[in-house]
């Protein structure tokens, strides 16, 4: 087969190649994703017959022309993709697929981490998820244990209100800080500000969300803000991983969220949460968001005020640690 087909590597800057890939995938009902950093195609007489792509460590947009299926073209594409990523020192690859392809993908070196009715999440590192679960800091408590997953970009009084409320209703409260570094405030800072701002709450544990809680691994669209038909599947999968494995491991029986007046995707995610969590015996608790005189307090509003240098308004909306961080970032020029 080697002489019959040609192989082409298409990077971010090859717009013609990306265009051709887009139209090939479209012909087999797959939507090309603009965040892809590498595409590998097999062509015959200059026509694409098979394609596979990746965005960082996530394999996406796998498609083979129906006439050429069962020729093992995916074996070629996966071999090359693994080798290509290996050269970039990216070793852990993951992907989402439909149940009907689970066996095929498994034969290409992938293991099923979690599956729902509609989707299978697979990784090529057999023990990565197990190790993640083992490394979660587990605290003992005989009473009720709650959890909140937050981005804290950066932590505001609105977040703190939700944390205090949840902390008062539980013996132990885990705060998972989303660790994906795609937010304005870097993870290390978001984490540190959360620690400092919750010092007074003795039953609150702040931990790193890692790769399996709203990360680009388990929930790619959350970061690309690319609304597509996979959103529903990603939400389901992320929440199933949380309920079935993470909450179980840490004995979490309640998950809190604040009402979301702005972001459609977050709202949708919360809605799915209210449906999925109870299936695993976890209470979904929605808390009305804290309002200031300018409406609901949000991190984006806080960032905007910091950008505008309105530290007077800002001071009333954030914990001291966040205030100091934003001021110092701004060189303190606008302090009034």
């Amino acid at each position, binding site marked *: 087969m080697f002489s019959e087909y040609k192989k082409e590597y298409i990077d971010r800057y090859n717009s013609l190649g990306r265009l051709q890939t887009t139209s090939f995938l479209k012909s087999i009902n797959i939507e090309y994703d603009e965040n892809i950093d590498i595409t590998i195609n097999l062509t015959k007489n200059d026509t694409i017959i098979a394609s596979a792509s990746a965005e960082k460590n996530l394999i996406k947009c796998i498609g083979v022309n129906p006439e050429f299926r069962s020729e*093992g073209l995916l*074996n*070629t594409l*996966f*071999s090359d993709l*693994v*080798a290509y990523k*290996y050269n970039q020192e990216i*070793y852990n690859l993951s992907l989402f697929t439909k149940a009907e392809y689970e066996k095929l993908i*498994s*034969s*290409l*070196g992938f293991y099923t981490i979690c599956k729902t009715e509609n989707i299978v999440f697979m990784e090529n590192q*057999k023990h990565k998820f197990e190790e993640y679960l083992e490394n979660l800091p587990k605290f003992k408590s005989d009473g009720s244990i709650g959890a909140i997953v937050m981005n804290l970009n950066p932590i505001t009084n609105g977040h703190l209100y939700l944390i205090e409320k949840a902390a008062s209703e539980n013996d132990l409260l885990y705060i998972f800080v989303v660790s994906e570094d795609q937010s304005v405030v870097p993870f290390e800072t978001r984490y540190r500000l959360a620690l400092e701002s919750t010092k007074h709450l003795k039953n609150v544990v702040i931990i790193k969300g890692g790769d399996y809680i709203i990360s680009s691994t388990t929930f790619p669209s959350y970061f690309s803000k690319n609304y597509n038909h996979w959103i529903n599947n990603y939400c389901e999968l992320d929440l199933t991983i949380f309920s079935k494995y993470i909450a179980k491991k840490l004995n979490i029986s309640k998950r809190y969220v604040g009402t979301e007046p702005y972001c459609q995707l977050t709202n949708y995610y919360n809605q799915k949460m209210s449906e999925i969590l109870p299936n695993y015996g976890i209470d979904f608790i929605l808390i009305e968001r804290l309002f200031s005189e300018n409406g609901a307090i949000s991190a984006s509003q806080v960032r905007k005020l910091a950008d505008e240098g309105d530290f007077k308004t800002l001071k009333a909306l954030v914990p001291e640690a966040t205030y100091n961080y934003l001021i110092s970032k701004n060189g303190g020029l606008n302090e009034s």
Partner: protein
Amino acid sequence: MNLKRRAIAGTMESSDTMIEIIPWEKSLEINLKSDVEKQYGNQILDLVKKVLAEDNIENACVNIIDKGALDFTISARLKTALYRASK
């Protein structure tokens, strides 16, 4: 042989095998996925263990994705992966 880094050799093409070596403090773990696992799984594992033993490899994770490769192919891929991992 001293393993210094993770390394890979081979492909997932038909009749080939892709082998990854990861230095690992725990023990020796061999994960085999093979299209012919039912018929030849044990034979492949024996071969892999033999090659590893020749180089005194006791602490490593060895991931094998086999597509029906013959013994000498498996052996060659494994030796190449080991060589790369030891560089």
